[in-house]
């Protein structure tokens, strides 16, 4: 059970019932979808059965309204940012289940029938489970990024490419506008184009392309 803060609960409800409430909800839903896709790119899968980004967002919303999850306005004055943090935590837990299943048993024999012993793992290196997981994640993420880059390049739009490159260094439209010299309103428009591109790159597509590319290596 999460701590209950009646005043914050009432304040959260008040804000949600107020003029900003509906926009906060839509932004939270959108964030849950974007983040689930981001985690999916790393895991090569969408959420487990029965869960969806909007069900996670809805669960967070109801728990905050009912006071089962606490928002501390002194620590985080923005209700939306606090809600996003809760969604991030819940999605992270759901995806971590996949990662646990991707872990290989340490006592599994290596190819060539050799068994692993303590000497097989130099001190300071990641253990075999960590190595496997990191390598799988890294390949999936690289594939997702490659697919995004290929789609951006196919648009033949230098401004879109500039925004894409700026995302290696920044995440706010204002910073990207400053870096690229593109007006911020235009950055927002280009963001919509990137959103359309990202929406088409599902975790399942990333996993499939990664497998195809690996088999050709």
């Amino acid at each position, binding site marked *: 059970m999460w701590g209950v803060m009646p005043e914050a609960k009432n304040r959260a409800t008040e804000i949600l019932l107020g003029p900003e409430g509906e926009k906060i909800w839509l932004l939270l839903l959108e964030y849950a979808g974007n983040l689930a896709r981001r985690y999916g790119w790393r895991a090569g899968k969408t959420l487990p059965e029965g869960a969806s980004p909007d069900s996670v967002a809805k669960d967070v919303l109801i728990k905050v309204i009912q006071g089962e999850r606490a928002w501390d306005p002194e620590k985080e004055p923005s209700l939306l940012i606090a809600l996003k943090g809760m969604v991030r935590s819940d999605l992270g837990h759901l995806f971590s289940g996949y990662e646990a299943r991707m872990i290989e048993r340490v006592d599994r024999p290596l190819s060539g029938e050799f068994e692993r012993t303590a000497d097989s793992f130099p001190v300071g290196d990641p253990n075999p489970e960590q190595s496997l997981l990191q390598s799988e994640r890294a390949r999936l993420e690289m594939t997702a990024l490659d697919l995004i880059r290929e789609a951006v390049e196919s648009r033949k739009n230098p401004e879109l490419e500039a925004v894409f490159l700026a995302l290696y260094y920044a*995440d706010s439209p204002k910073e990207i506008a400053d870096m690229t010299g593109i007006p911020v309103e235009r950055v927002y428009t280009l963001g919509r184009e990137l959103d359309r591109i990202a929406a088409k790159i599902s975790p399942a597509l990333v996993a499939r392309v990664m497998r195809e590319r690996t088999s050709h290596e």
Partner: protein
Amino acid sequence: MNSRDKRSQENAAFLDNLTSFLSDEQRSLEDVKESLREQGIDPESALQEFRDILATHAPSWREKASRERQKVKESLGDEPTQPNRSREEIVAEIKEVANSMGSLGAPIVAGAYHSRFEEASEDDLDSLLRDLKLQRDLLRRKQERGNE
């Protein structure tokens, strides 16, 4: 850190930045709705669902009152109008209910209705009586809960 690890970190950071950029809060409501449509979510249905969640889990005082009234109505059953009652009898009962509400600590503005009794039809009076009875029952329940 070797160059492969460094590249992996850069890739991960890029995807994090992209996710954050695509979720920017300063965008217009229309942009957010368009983005939701790209995700296969109908924003209008999502908004309706939000209103339903609020009505259920964070009802406004008006919704709470309406729900309470409905509960009382259901618990009382659909009390039939007593047939063949004279207009004077209904008005007398309205005054009696209004007085009892005053004694419950809710000096109802029923007095305001008195001047209109003469203009009101019998159906209107009957409806007013039912409404006042419901409010009185609500008040009684509230007081009983307070005494527990």
